[in-house]
């Protein structure tokens, strides 16, 4: 194999691996649009999904459920049921991350975002703000309790 062929071969391998990765990613994004954070006003709430209003402010998360009860820094959900988070911010940009579910959505003032997820296993999981938002940014965290 001469120099040029080695290069082409290597470029082809890189291209194939990356194309495969890009296609897998594309398949996921197209198939799971409701799990991708989107502006609230151009996406419908999926059927059978309970809406939870999320308000981020300096420095706590407030959750308002469909029965109008409110909790702060604790999120109560039930396993096997789909939820839609409608996320807003009162002051600066925040970013809600629930690492074990891979759910992440920005809380932007005046730009409500929406994302759906379905917890599968009961338990207590952490969530946190991952967009730096001032003095007590690190305290903008809490637990998501998934009841069976």
């Amino acid at each position, binding site marked *: 194999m001469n*120099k040029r062929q*080695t*290069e082409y071969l*290597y*470029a082809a391998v*890189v*291209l194939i691996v*990356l*194309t495969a*990765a*890009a296609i*897998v*990613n*594309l398949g*996921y*994004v*197209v198939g*799971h*649009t409701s*799990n*991708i*954070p*989107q*502006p609230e006003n*151009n996406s419908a709430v999926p059927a059978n999904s309970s809406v939870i209003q999320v308000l981020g402010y*300096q420095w706590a998360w407030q959750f308002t459920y469909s029965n109008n009860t409110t909790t702060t820094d604790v999120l109560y959900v039930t396993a096997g049921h789909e939820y839609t988070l409608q996320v807003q911010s009162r*002051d*600066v*940009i925040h*970013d809600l*991350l629930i*690492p*074990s579910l*891979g*759910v*992440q*959505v*920005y809380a*932007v*003032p*005046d*730009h409500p*975002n929406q994302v759906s997820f379905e917890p599968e296993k009961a338990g207590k999981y*952490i969530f*946190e*703000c*991952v*967009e*730096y*938002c*001032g*003095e*007590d*940014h*690190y*305290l903008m*965290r809490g637990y998501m309790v998934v009841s069976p």
Partner: protein
Amino acid sequence: MSTETMLILVGILVGVVSVAIFYVYYLVSTRIETISNVAEEEGYPDRTVFIRDSLYGKPRPLSWSILFYDDAKSIGLRYIFTGLLFMFIGGAFGVLMRISLTDPNPTIISPTIYNILLTQHATIMIYMFAIGMAMGFAYYILPSRLRLKRDNMGHLSSVAYWMWVLGGTLFVLSKSSMRWYMYPPLSLQLTPFGAGAYNWLAVIAMELIFMGMVMASVIVLKIIFIDRADDIPLSQMPVYGWAVVFTLVMLVSSAPPLMVGLGMLFYDFFNPIFFVTSTSTPLAFAILFWFWGHPIVYIAVIPFFGLMYDIITRFTETKVYSYFSAVLSLGLLLILSELVWGHHLLNSGLGVDWVIFFTTASFIVVIPSALTIFNMIATLWTAKKIRLTTPMLFVINAIFDFIIGGIMGVMLADDPINQAVHGTYFVTGHFHFIFVGLTLGVSMAAFYLLFPTFSNGRVYDERLAKWHFYITAVGSFLMSFSWAVGGFLGMPRAVAGYFAYFQPYQDSAILGGVIIGIGQLVFLYNIAKSWSTEPATDPYNILEYRTETNQVMGGGK
């Protein structure tokens, strides 16, 4: 103290200061007069042109005179050593943050101070260290490498340099805690709990840094394209020259949106209309920022790719495996890296279409990086011998770290993974692999190579330099790797405190961070010790070609 005593003391003080100023003025003016006389005898109408012509193309050791002479090499030395100075300041901030994180609750350093350190560390390292090194090596190496015909924009370079230094200094003094993203509305909160009371100063400082960078970039581009010796066609320019061209074109083309954005942000302090909710959206600034923010991270890498090619070919005594592919991939990086900025905002509600565009583009941008690394490995592979000097060790480690950091980058391009780990230490690990391994490592490699030239023929201690390398490499791997693992479990970045659950990952990263700090102290000791020895070698160095004086002079004869 009575008023009379006070008046007498102030009088004496003013007198002493006046005498001192007069003395300095006397020294400077006599020196200028002498130089003017010599210049006239040599046939130069202009003193400064004479100074530049008599300096350039020659090795330029470090001395205080670099602050007053405006030839390209003096400017280069200024950038390099200012960059190093800021690297130590920013590094100290980094180590302080690590120490503070030994406790999951911020008891050692208060969150306010921690957030200031966080902002300053990032800004200093990117704008002052990485850019300083990139500009410095370009100004220092390219004039002799491309055998410049003239060197006649020194004054403007000097202005650009001082603006950049002033910007960096003011940014540190502003005690800003807005993070380097500068997202409004947080950056508009002028309180210690928001962005810091003097954040308006930080915005001005950023603007100064930007103006300095853009001016210097245009001048270096002019040096490369117009002042290059006639017998060096673009097609034979060293890969390093191309790397600098691509970097600076990227800088000049992507900085203006954010410069405008910063101006609008500054206006918002007085009359909030641009990035507030009633008339616009804060995300508009985030988009302006990342349009620049993504290219800047390539600006901190591409010139160092160029230096890596240079160092590899020197120590393997061979040519670059494929010159064409080397230049092509760096050029592709320039174009593609300007199309992927949205992947920093994938979860902000851009909408599905943009998510698809930016994730796919982010996969594509990996291709030129992979080709570059392949080219470097192939050069090493086909070499007859490899001399494992300290600079070469740094470069090999840079390739290794770039591969790990790069693969983590590919993972981040995947939207489901991005949703899980964006904003966590996984991202911090990703870019610290590259910034510490590649940007810092290759800067150090080039610094060691040029040390005899900087120091007028002194030799650094090879044993200590090896220690510096091994300590830095081990520390950086430990730190970035712990972050990668912790981040994958959801450990958030940019926080002053954390869930105790993450303690093991933080602790091992702290150990790594402190080890890196110790490594840089070894470097400092080595340099200080070597500088006090007697010159022992030829001040010419392998990145510094010996230039024959066949150049056209900038003025005079």
